[in-house]
């Protein structure tokens, strides 16, 4: 058995497979399929300082080898997340390693969530979402403007002792530049990619299939984009990288490691087969064994050129 232990700076995980924010609710649903402890980490759906209703319906649609979503970050707000039994207390009881994805409409919002979560038991890291394409204010605006991105990360950094992951948008010309900027402001890790903006139209009704008109594209359709961006980012910065975008199989995950990801996150695939993360964890083990690697580290960035 190869060693799957994954060191992401101060954060040590039993394996490199986590769930992607927004595709795993707050853990409770998928805990019916397997113990959440088996995951490297659970990344919960984006939390804001206020409760958020999200976007009107329809919010999702199936597209070629992927899907569009514009959920609009519906969430119970940070106070409910900390206190209501079905959220953080549930995850704590389940023994899950919890990473909280945070967002806001202003720099102050991001700071307010980070501050509230600091010192709360049972949280392993924060993931700053500066890349959601589906909300009118905040979200991607922060992720596509270098000045704003720097401001959010440096401000959140001051409010928390937890490791800070910054989640980058693929909707930029050079993602590695953004990676350098946020690392310069104190981000301990980078995660990428978030969904790519997209659109689909029903030709009978002439309406967009998503009420928000545009949505974020995820699934296998974006995997090659994600691999390239992970590769570029790994070559630009020296911090751990969490790669995601269309990972459905063990082979997909291995591609991300070879491109330079230290860990991977499973998103859309959970909706299709809830057992995907568990299958990939054992698949990685088999791959390492059959290829004579003793641990995941030997794979990371080991692209043959």
């Amino acid at each position, binding site marked *: 058995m190869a060693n799957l232990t994954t060191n992401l700076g101060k954060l040590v995980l039993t394996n490199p497979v986590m769930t992607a924010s927004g*595709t795993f609710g707050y853990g409770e649903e998928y805990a019916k399929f397997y113990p959440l402890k088996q995951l490297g980490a659970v990344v919960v759906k984006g939390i804001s300082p206020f409760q958020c209703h*999200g976007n009107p319906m329809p919010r999702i649609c199936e597209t070629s080898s992927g899907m569009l979503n514009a959920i609009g970050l519906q969430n119970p707000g940070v106070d409910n997340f900390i206190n209501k039994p079905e959220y953080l207390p549930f995850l704590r009881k389940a023994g899950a390693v919890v990473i909280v994805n945070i967002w806001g409409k202003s720099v102050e919002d991001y700071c307010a969530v980070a501050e509230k979560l600091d010192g709360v038991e049972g949280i392993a890291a924060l993931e700053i979402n500066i890349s959601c394409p589906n909300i009118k204010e905040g979200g991607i605006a922060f992720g596509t403007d270098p000045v704003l991105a720097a401001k959010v990360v440096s401000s959140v950094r001051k409010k928390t002792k937890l490791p800070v992951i910054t989640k980058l948008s693929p909707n930029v010309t050079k993602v590695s530049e953004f990676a350098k900027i946020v690392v310069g402001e104190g981000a301990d890790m980078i995660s990428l990619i978030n969904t790519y903006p997209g659109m689909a139209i029903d030709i009978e009704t002439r309406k967009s299939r998503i009420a928000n008109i545009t949505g974020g594209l995820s699934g296998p359709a974006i995997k090659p984009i994600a691999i390239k961006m992970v590769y570029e980012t790994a070559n630009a910065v020296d911090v751990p990288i969490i790669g995601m975008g269309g990972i459905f199989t063990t082979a997909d995950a291995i591609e991300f490691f070879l491109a330079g990801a230290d860990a991977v996150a499973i998103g859309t695939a959970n909706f299709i087969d809830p057992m995907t993360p568990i299958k990939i964890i054992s698949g990685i083990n088999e791959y390492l064994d059959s290829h004579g690697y003793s641990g995941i580290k030997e794979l990371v960035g080991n692209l043959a050129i």
Partner: protein
Amino acid sequence: MCQFQAEQSKIINNCNIKGKYYRIDFMCEKIAELARPGQFVHVQIKNMGERLFRRPFSIFDVSDDGVLSIIYKVVGYGTCVLSGLKNGEICDILGPLGNSYSIPEIGETPIITAGGYGAASTYLLAKNSQTKGKVLLGAKNKDELILCDEYKRLGFDVEIATDDGSCGYSGLVTDLLAYFLKEAGIKIYGCGPNSMMYAITKMLKGTSKIAELSLDENMCCGVGACFGCVIKVVAKNEKGWEYKRSCNEGPVFKSNEIYLDF
């Protein structure tokens, strides 16, 4: 909390029942054992190529020997592929998902209003109900009418409404429901197109009657994780409503919970 699981299920029958309607039976013991009326299953249809999503279908019937049946209408790509699957093939099925109808209490007469494939969702309810009542079946025309005989065999009175008058009452099935509203001791259930469910909701506003209505929203995960299937329910906040997941807190909602904004 509802209990559900994934089960590899073998197709033991898949046949056309009428027009675009099919019945498929799976050997699906664990899910069949847990199934309650109104719940649904999320089926991964094989050979769909680049189309990834599972498709949700109401549980039509279950048998003691572990057979789970679905009645489906071919409306698009997935249901078309499903209709071509052969006996012996395996489908990955998640279920039973969602909440369920409450079984009528002794002395309560169930009145089931169903349109199109909605009639599949209420069959187990009728089967498990101690008191027999009425089923009001609605369809575009007589060729789209399904399950009349099945409900009759359970001892229910079946009344029919078709849009074009080709069978039974000419008009909407909700017109039929209006006749019975004043009767005492009735319990109203409904499943069909959302427009029909919202029409029933409107009819009952201001009366003391509360219906249990199953709503039909597009679904993605089916288990409550994606927030892609929400509907507006009445809430005590500044807006007067909040979103609830129809796969998790639904698909069955009480008519006085459903928020109408039109």
